Every structure is written in structure tokens, then in C-alpha cells.
């Protein structure tokens, strides 16, 4: 008999070695996430995918599925936690959507829309963050970086390079670039690299492409991220 876990009362099968996130996605259940991307090693840092497993909070993207687990995801408490986490991500950076090229295609914004986040709740930090516009084709705006490390992982795991890393601790934590000058132009990053396209927010952008699709006709303008996320997975598996 195949092994199963229960998510919000729904019994779903899983394969040995799958995380809760992988099992949920395969079963068509969306668990909100930002630092997780199925093709990369899970990082478990954004905590948006926090679920309650047998009474304890765990990150669904890193926690292995095990037979008989009772997982709670869409509870009022967890949705509220996720909204608070998203609000914290917003106030810790400088996320001014009306002036950002990524608006409408941004996963941070889309998760916030999905959670019906209407305000920031917390006082804003307005941290000083550096912009690096030195690269001819790629723009790096740390104001919008949520330190998900997807660019770090993409550069190492897909591009065979090592362009990005995260440095510092706490509020001083920031994205650094692997070159003597510390500038993007002096790295081997190319606009075709996976790392240049993986950013869930508008921190890494390809120059001169930002407004090819008008605002109002973008990915999340009319479609929720749960639907987009699950469809993307199912297309990949040829379903």
C-alpha cells in the first residue's frame, strides 16, 4: 500500500524522499512560498510555506513527507502568520510597486495579493540599499531583494558559475556579487543565465525589457499565484 499524508483533511500519496511541498504540489495543493523553486535545492528561509505537521510548525519545502503525517496548511492561524511574514518582507525592504518594472509579474506582490494583504501593519524600515546598474544587460536593485537566495542557487546549480552570495547578518544581511570590484559588470553573469531570470521580485531585472507587457496584462493581474504556480508544475510534467 502506498504511503500517504493528510493535508487539511485531504489524503494524498507521496513518494519516498519527497518533501511535504513536493507531495502537495503533485497533488494539486498550493502552499504559499517565495524562496522555494522545484528545480533547486530547498532553502527554507522565507518561512511562508510554514505548515503545522503533527502539531509543530515546519517549512513544507524542507520537511520530508512521512507516512501518516497530519498537515495543516490553510488554517486561519497559518494564513495570518503568512500575511504577517509577507508584511515583514515588505517593510524590511523598499517595495514601492507603482515604480517597479516587476509589478504584476512579482511573486512577492502576488503572494501578498493571494493573502489579501491590504496594509503593511508594521512601521517601515526604509533601509539604505545599494543599486548596481553597472552591468550592460542586467540590473541589480537590492531595495527589492528578499534574500531568498534563488539567484545564488541558480548561478551555482544551473549556470555553473558563482555570481551571487549573501553576506552579513540580521538587518545588515545583503546580496553580494562575486567580483573584485563588487560590481555586476565585472562578473561572468550573462543576461541569458538562469540566475538573471529567477528573482521572484524586481531585484534582478533584464534591462530594456521591463515594459514589453503593459501593466494590467501581467501574470498576476488576473490570475492568482496558486493557479499560476500549480499550472507551471503540471506543464513541466507534461500533464
Amino acid at each position, binding site marked *: 500500500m502506498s504511503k500517504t499524508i493528510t493535508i487539511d483533511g485531504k489524503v494524498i500519496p507521496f513518494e519516498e524522499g519527497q518533501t511535504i511541498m513536493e507531495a502537495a504540489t503533485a497533488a494539486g495543493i498550493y502552499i504559499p512560498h517565495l524562496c522555494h523553486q522545484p528545480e533547486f535545492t530547498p532553502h527554507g528561509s522565507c518561512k511562508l510555506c510554514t505548515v503545522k505537521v503533527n502539531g509543530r510548525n515546519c517549512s513544507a519545502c524542507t520537511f520530508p513527507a512521512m507516512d501518516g503525517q497530519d498537515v495543516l496548511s490553510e488554517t486561519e492561524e497559518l494564513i495570518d502568520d503568512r500575511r504577517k511574514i509577507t508584511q515583514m518582507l515588505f517593510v524590511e525592504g523598499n*517595495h514601492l*510597486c*507603482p*515604480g517597479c518594472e516587476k509589478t504584476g509579474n512579482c511573486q512577492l506582490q502576488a503572494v501578498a495579493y493571494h493573502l*489579501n494583504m*491590504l*496594509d503593511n501593519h508594521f512601521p*517601515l524600515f*526604509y533601509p539604505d540599499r545599494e543599486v548596481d546598474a553597472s552591468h550592460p544587460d542586467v540590473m541589480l536593485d537590492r531595495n527589492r531583494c528578499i534574500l531568498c537566495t534563488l539567484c545564488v542557487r541558480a548561478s551555482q546549480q544551473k549556470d555553473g558559475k558563482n555570481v551571487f552570495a549573501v553576506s552579513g547578518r540580521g538587518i545588515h544581511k545583503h546580496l553580494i556579487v562575486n567580483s573584485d570590484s563588487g560590481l555586476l559588470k565585472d562578473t561572468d553573469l550573462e543576461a541569458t543565465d538562469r540566475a538573471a531570470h529567477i528573482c521572484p521580485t524586481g531585484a534582478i531585472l533584464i534591462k530594456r525589457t521591463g515594459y514589453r507587457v503593459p501593466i494590467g496584462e501581467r501574470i498576476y493581474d*488576473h490570475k492568482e499565484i496558486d493557479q499560476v504556480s500549480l499550472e507551471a508544475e503540471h506543464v513541466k510534467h507534461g500533464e
Partner: protein
Amino acid sequence: MANKIRVATTSLAGCFGCHMSFLDIDERMLQLAEVVEFDRSPITDIEHCTNCDIGLIEGGVCNSENVHVLREFRKNCKILVAVGACAINGGLPALRNHIPLEECLNEAYIEGIGVEKPKIPSDIELPLLLNQVHPIHEVVKIDYFLPGCPPSADVFWKFLTDLIEGREPSLPYELVHYD
């Protein structure tokens, strides 16, 4: 109708874009006018609000006058609403938060291109600028938030009709935008 719902509106560090969007409810304004009357608002030119049911605040807080107006609204409005991106997170005016105030003023009034008779305005009538632009929830308690730059006319309509008809206001996915 004898007891109309009293609504006050103002723009602090905003561009009046949210007010313009509010006017985009077009002919529905007539329906609204049957149950609502405007107190302090650019529509009426009343200077101070008194005993209102709903206060709509556009824009963040960038100077001392903004703080006074916002507190007046909080004192006089049963329900206070942050309208638009700037009221909610400071918005584009908050881009100056990373630049020391003196540098901002020097750029605008002394060293900027095309400045004639360079002098930083210092008339006693002018409200003093705050060091940084702040969202309004950092200054007073806010009851509801309408995101958007600007919130669409349908957001205003949905929110106000919900309130007026006694429902807990809510915005469906299609009406929630930060841009």
C-alpha cells in the same frame, strides 16, 4: 434623507490621483450623493472636518501640517481609511527617505538645473518638512486600507457601498493592486 453619512477626504503628501480615481465612479456619484454628504474635502472647500462617519486620507505624511490634518481627521472621523500606496507605505514621495533633507532642499532650490534666485523657502506660513516621509498608520490608528496607485474607482465603490450597506468591507482579488 435626513441623516446622511458624512464623508471627509483630504490629500496629504499625495498627488490627488486617488481623488481623481474616486471621481471615476462617474454617474454612481449621484447614487452616492443620495446617502452621503461631503464634509471637509476638495469638493466642498470646507477647511476643518467635524463629526464625520468616514475619513478618506490620500498620501503619506511629509510635513508638520500633514500631521495636524491627520490628527484632526482621526479625532473627527469614526472610520479612518488609508487610501492609496502613499498613505499605506509612503509611496513615491518616500524615495527621498534615503537622501538627507538638506541635500533634497539644496537640489530643489539652490543647485538644481534652471534654478533662478536660489533660496530655500523659509516663509513662516510654510509647514516644516519632516526628515522622512511616513505612512499614516505610523501616526494614527487606521481602520481600513485601500491599496493601489491609485485604487480604481471600483475599489472606492465596493468599499463605500459595503460600509454604507452595513457589510464588513472586503476587496476581492481583482480589486487588490499595489500599482
